[in-house]
């Protein structure tokens, strides 16, 4: 097992280097000058422009800038935001819990609804439920997130008044973050109404962010289940006289879940991407919105380090999924 993990880790090194290269050069081919973007409508004098270019190292050849950047990153220095002058890593750590909390709740929503729906659709293959579920899943998969989010806000928050429009907690609660996870913090404070408020604020963004993974998981579960249900061992289990519930839950599901877990792992990367739009719509103070704001401000440092940090996390999650997969299916370890 250790061997397997080490092999996986070794694969990560070239990927990380590739990502630093991409993050660094993509940001530089964006049109626009970060120093001019920092200056307001009055602009900046040519002398001051040169001084700043030098200060930020933008006057150096690109390759040299890249190696300086890489050297800093390896020492854990992700730079200082051009706009706020705060260390990028500090901002990232402040905002990251909000993204994780949202992504986790969205994922729980997608799994809790998606897997049973997929199983049921497979068991009742061809029924109206199957067709409805798959139809809804296809619609959910094709839904533009921005439009879907605004639609839900207008209906549930504006028209029905059931859910809050945006934010993480009602503004009447003033709680300084402890862990950064609002649900946990409100419990640590022992403030039950605040916990309820935080939960209510999570509903719409989690539904919006969870919609696409939900659709993917439901479809994946259905097709995996269908495949497994046709296997010999399932037929044997049935022939043994086991109850239909036991056949599905114990014999079929365990095997069907292997590809589903991979799918869930892959969805984590997509969730972080989807979070960019969801966070923007719901004013959710996470890293997605932070990245978007930084791109529009041409905050090179935040964009390239933010990209790298997000990529590192996605890779870590994928590694965890691989390990989990190997635990469930020992054959993988050897391959």
């Amino acid at each position, binding site marked *: 097992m250790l061997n397997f993990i080490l092999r996986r880790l070794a694969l990560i090194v070239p990927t990380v280097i590739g990502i630093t290269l991409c993050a660094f050069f993509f940001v530089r081919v*964006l*049109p*626009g*000058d970060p120093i*001019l*973007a*920092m*200056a*307001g*409508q*009055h*602009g*900046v*004098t040519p002398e*001051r422009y040169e001084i*700043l270019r030098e*200060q*930020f190292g933008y006057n150096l050849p690109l390759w040299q800038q890249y190696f300086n950047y890489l050297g800093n990153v390896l020492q854990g220095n992700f730079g*200082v935001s*051009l*706009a*706020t*002058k*705060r260390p990028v890593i500090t*901002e990232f750590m*402040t*905002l990251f819990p909000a993204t994780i909390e949202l992504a986790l709740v969205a994922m729980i929503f997608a799994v809790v609804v998606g897997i049973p729906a997929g199983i049921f659709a497979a068991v009742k293959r061809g029924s109206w439920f199957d067709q409805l579920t798959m139809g809804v899943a296809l619609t959910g998969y094709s839904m533009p997130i921005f439009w879907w989010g*605004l639609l839900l*806000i*207008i209906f549930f*928050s*504006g028209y029905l*008044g059931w859910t*809050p*429009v*945006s*934010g*993480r907690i*009602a*503004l*009447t*609660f*003033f*709680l*300084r*973050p*402890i862990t950064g996870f609002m649900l946990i913090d409100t419990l*640590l*404070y022992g*403030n039950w109404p605040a916990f309820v408020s935080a939960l209510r604020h999570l509903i719409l963004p989690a539904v919006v962010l969870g919609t696409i993974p939900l659709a993917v998981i439901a479809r994946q579960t259905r097709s995996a289940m269908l495949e497994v249900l046709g296997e010999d061992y399932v037929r044997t289990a049935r022939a043994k006289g086991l109850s239909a519930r036991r056949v599905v839950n114990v014999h079929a599901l365990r095997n069907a879940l292997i590809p589903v877990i991979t799918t869930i792992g892959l969805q984590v990367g997509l969730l972080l991407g989807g979070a960019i739009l969801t966070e*923007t*719509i*719901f*004013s959710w*103070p996470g890293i997605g*919105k*932070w990245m978007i*704001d930084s791109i529009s401000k*041409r905050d090179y440092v935040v964009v390239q380090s933010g990209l790298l940090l997000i990529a590192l996390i996605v890779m870590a999650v994928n590694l965890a999924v691989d390990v989990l997969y190997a635990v469930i299916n020992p054959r993988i370890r050897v391959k």
Partner: protein
Amino acid sequence: MTLMKSLLAATAVLALTAGAAQAKQLVYCSEASPAHFDPGPLTGGNDFDASSHTIYDRLVQFEPGGTATIPGLAESWDISEDGKEITFHLRPGVKFHTTSYFTPTRDLNADDVIFSFERQWKEDNAWYAYLEGMTWDYFQGMDMARYIQEIRKDDDLTVTFVLTEPNAPMIANLAMDFAAIVSKEYADQLEASGDLASFSTQPVGTGPFMLVDYQLDTVIRYQAFPDYWDGKQPIDDLVFAITTDPSVRAQRLLAGECDIMSYPAPADIAQLQADQNLTVMEQEGLNIGYMSYNVTEAPFDNVNVRKALSMAIDKAAIIEAVYQGAGEDAKNLIPPTMWSYNDAVAADVYDPEKAKELLAEAGVTNLTTDLWAMPVSRPYNPNAQRVAELIQADWAAVGVTANIVTYEWTEYRERGKAEDRKGPFQIGWTGDNGDPDNFFATLFSCSAIGVSNYSSWCNEEFEDLIQKAKTTSDQEERAELYRQAQEIFKAEEPAMTLAHSRVFMPMKKTVLNYKMSPLGNHSFKGVDIEE
């Protein structure tokens, strides 16, 4: 240990909020997070709303809802006969905020004033570059270093600004956000502890509100300053709920999550106006959207060609289609709300036939030109691409072919400055301080060529008038000079003045005494909320 500390702090915060259960709270849905809280180096309107207008004061300030300057931290000021010395008499007994990180031992004095400017001005000042890569954009942009020779302390409550030459707009400049007065005592404390950067995140000012807490990209909380020199504010707590999307801001206001919001999307205004719990205030913005002709390039060097091209544009149709009723035809460079506006200048006429004649007289046939469209939406021009398409169609009708060009925003402005730029260039301006000089000299003086004079237009007569107006202290005399300058501008048509936009501010009917600022800032000083 950290968790324990946090829990203790949390208990304290809870106790505070419990005690303040009856506090009057005003929630403002703001459009963006502030970069930090030191207004000196900042440039964004949202930055200033969160710092300059809440936490700080200036020597002089703009009257609420207007652009006239009134006393602020200075009770009064005298200008010497030669116009080269302005002496400010500071208000006695002005307190700085007492916070968890700073306890002032003295009231505001001349040292604070001198420090507030020298840190932006003198490169050898320890605070000149206290944040990595910082620039004092406004201090430099307003050319303060060129006009200020010395800031002199006459006594604890008297400061004199010695100028290199008489400069009438200086008082208005000192009312601008960058000129906020900061605490030298606090700066000294931070310098002694080597923690300069905290100056921008843990602010100490004399303003109506004290910063209580800022959660990045989420919320800013302020508390009314009990010892404010102008009296404690009617509200106890002020909350900025940061909400970047304008439609979501509107939904939050409709759902009662905030009391007042900034910059609604034009498409949401009708719905907000229709809600019986809301009021939508509106005001002409102190801005101008225009299109600069490069007068150094043929055929735009010919005034009749410029006039013909302007005449061929149906401005009313553009304002209707693009500004959606929130714009006003601009016949002058400055908006009608600004003093010295010359209403005698004839309005632009839409006359494609006359335009064709003028072009033919000038010998211009089958003209093909670039037409520049900004890539961003600005209050003075919400959709430059659409404007360009409409102009393109209007010009096609008089035989002029326009190719629309655009670039990323900073790139766009850089390329626009090139003296050999081909084709008319859309741009605009939002006033900084309500002084006409801030429009005329900034945008069309000879020295602004290559900086912000996108027409590369240098007219001797116009230049003489605006330079004379700058050094004259009598306002009526200045107004007359600017009125003449507007006539020359219209006769020479270095740019087609398109529109001044209107700005909307939706709020609950329970919000009292809010005054919209023509300068576009959002100040909650004096605002109350009905319970």
